[in-house]
């Protein structure tokens, strides 16, 4: 809409219509002359902005008559017949003064000169009747020589999502989001949100989202307070096993919530105030952490060490093999070991051994004992 109007403003010639109006006036004037009195009288009928009076002049042209009447013409004014046309007794001369119309369409202002004396005609003269638009004055309002400021709001098709409902299309004659919602009877509260913002100017085809927020207080009496389960590791018990030492007990409280609804649905709840009636008692559970050595676990290493070294993790007999799993120094170092294996803990020796086993895909590094223990090689 604005786009079209903009084109109009730049192309801005209302000239064709003005010519039609002039021609009509001239025809009337000529008709009057032919039907009238003898040609030598010097009395004329002059109509200025619709007011008609008799004027006398000794001149021979329209310009002469207007001079005699003390009327100054600029090129914004309309005169018929043309200024240099000859006049005769009884000729009719029509003058309409140009006047500025400061036209604001959907917030954009431009000044136009018109010769019409009322709003409806002026808009007609400008070629933009704005048939379904809202005007800041009545269409019949007069336009004086001083001109008029006129605001126009055009109707727009809007796609509206209101409070979470499915989007609907409505035609709304409004300049801003706020006006559009007001026109649709939507009350926008302080905490409600719109997109675009309330003061945003609308264009045809815009999408408007209105989100309804509501805040309320809710009191709940005797609300259960859940207990927590505290797990206490117990390395004297195996993994997977647990013992409930103390059952948990639910507590109770009176609580006041601040509740926020978004489009009628609960969005969040925050505690404003609470009074604990009875505290919950946490459940206490002992959870076993002792690892069960399974095949692939450390049990197998103990058995392997038993076979390799009699289970002596610190052994160093001077034969070039060290520790519980009888590492050679080169193998030990190849898998990241430092110093002598026999100086390291059982756990460290197992850690290096695990790397070796995983790298070789089995217990082949301990061929004799792996075979004796039935371990995969």
């Amino acid at each position: 809409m604005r786009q079209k109007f903009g084109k109009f403003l730049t192309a801005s010639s209302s000239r064709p219509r003005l010519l039609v109006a002039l021609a009509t006036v001239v025809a009337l004037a000529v008709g009057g002359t032919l039907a009238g009195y003898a040609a030598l009288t010097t009395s004329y009928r002059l109509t200025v902005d619709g007011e008609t009076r008799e004027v006398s002049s000794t001149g021979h042209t329209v310009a002469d008559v207007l001079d005699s009447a003390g009327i100054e013409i600029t090129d914004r004014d309309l005169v018929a017949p043309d200024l240099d046309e000859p006049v005769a007794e009884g000729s009719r001369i029509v003058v309409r003064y140009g006047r500025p119309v400061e036209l604001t369409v959907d917030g954009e202002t431009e000044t136009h000169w018109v010769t019409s004396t009322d709003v409806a005609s002026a808009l007609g003269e400008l070629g933009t009747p704005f048939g379904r638009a809202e005007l800041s004055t009545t269409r019949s309002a007069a336009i004086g020589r001083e001109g008029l400021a006129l605001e126009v709001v055009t109707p727009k098709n809007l796609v509206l999502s209101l409070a979470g409902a499915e989007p609907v299309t409505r035609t709304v004659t409004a300049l801003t989001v706020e006006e559009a919602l007001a026109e649709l009877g939507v009350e926008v509260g302080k905490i409600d949100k719109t997109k675009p913002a309330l003061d945003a100017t609308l264009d045809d085809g815009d999408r408007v989202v209105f989100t309804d927020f509501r805040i309320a207080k809710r009191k709940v009496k005797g609300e259960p307070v859940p207990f927590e389960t505290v797990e206490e590791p117990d390395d004297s018990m195996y993994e997977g096993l647990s013992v409930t030492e103390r059952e948990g007990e639910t507590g109770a409280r009176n609580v006041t919530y601040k509740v926020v609804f978004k489009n009628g649905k609960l969005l969040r709840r925050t505690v404003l105030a609470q009074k604990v009636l009875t505290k919950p008692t946490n459940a206490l559970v002992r959870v076993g952490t002792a690892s069960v050595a399974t095949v692939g676990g450390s049990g197998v290493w103990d058995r392997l060490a038993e076979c390799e070294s009699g289970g002596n993790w610190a052994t160093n007999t001077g034969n070039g093999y060290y520790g519980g799993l009888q590492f050679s120094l080169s193998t030990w170092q190849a898998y990241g070991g430092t110093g002598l294996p026999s100086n390291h803990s059982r756990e460290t020796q197992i850690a290096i051994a695990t790397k070796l086993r995983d790298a070789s895909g089995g217990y082949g590094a301990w061929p004799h004992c792996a075979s004796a223990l039935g371990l995969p090689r």
Partner: protein
Amino acid sequence: MSRRSDLPPAPEPLPRPVVDNHCHLDIARDGEALPVGEALAAAAAVGVTRIVQIGCDLERAPWAVQAAATYDAVVAGVALHPNEAPRVPDLDAAMAEIETLARAHDKVRAVGETGLDHFRTGEEGRAVQVESFRRHIDLAKRLDKTLVIHDRDAHQEVLRVLDEEGAPPRWVMHCFSGDALFARACLDRGAYLSFAGTVTFKNAEPLRGAARMTPRDRVLVETDAPFLTPSPHRGRTNASFLVPLTMRLLAEVRGDDLESLCEAVDDNTSDAFGGTWGG
């Protein structure tokens, strides 16, 4: 723990409680084992209210004892598995440890699983296997525990050793895998026959024949979880809460009313394991 979603869905609960008389709560087949508390709760929810936990090597047997000591619903069996026996460096020392564990708590009700496995242990290991079996039979008798026997592809050999040693008063043929004829031979020696998920397998008609002829006061049910998952979940991880699938099939092939068979199995298990237990 991370693999809970891999477990099959829970079957319809049983009309009366039964016992899963053979499972390995500590063994994870895929990922981590379910924590025992959860496994027991899931089982109880479908009517499997008691469990016999079997720990059958030197690492797992102490776990089984502690599980039995910790949970009302659980009793334990301890042993060296027939496939484990040839692997221990010192059978005497290992047996001494099993005996200590068997005496450690009155909720250790069974010595087992012991027996013979010709499927997984080759010729070279069989002498040790037989020796281990003999010592477990002796231990069960001395401590008045229930003997739980593992028999894989070794039916006649198991009976021969048992006859030579003399069967203890209460013994269970775990995951019974024979036909009606072998069932008869076991029953004649005072056995309880425990049926696992295998009885639901398509090709297990001889086994179903055995289930059909087993007297009602000798039938037991088990999972051997996490192994031997019953149809239609064969191949997935087994757990005690799947016992109802096996129970329903047993009732069907035997032409028994499910509720009364459950009652019989529950009573039989208490008898087989030296009296009832649980909360």
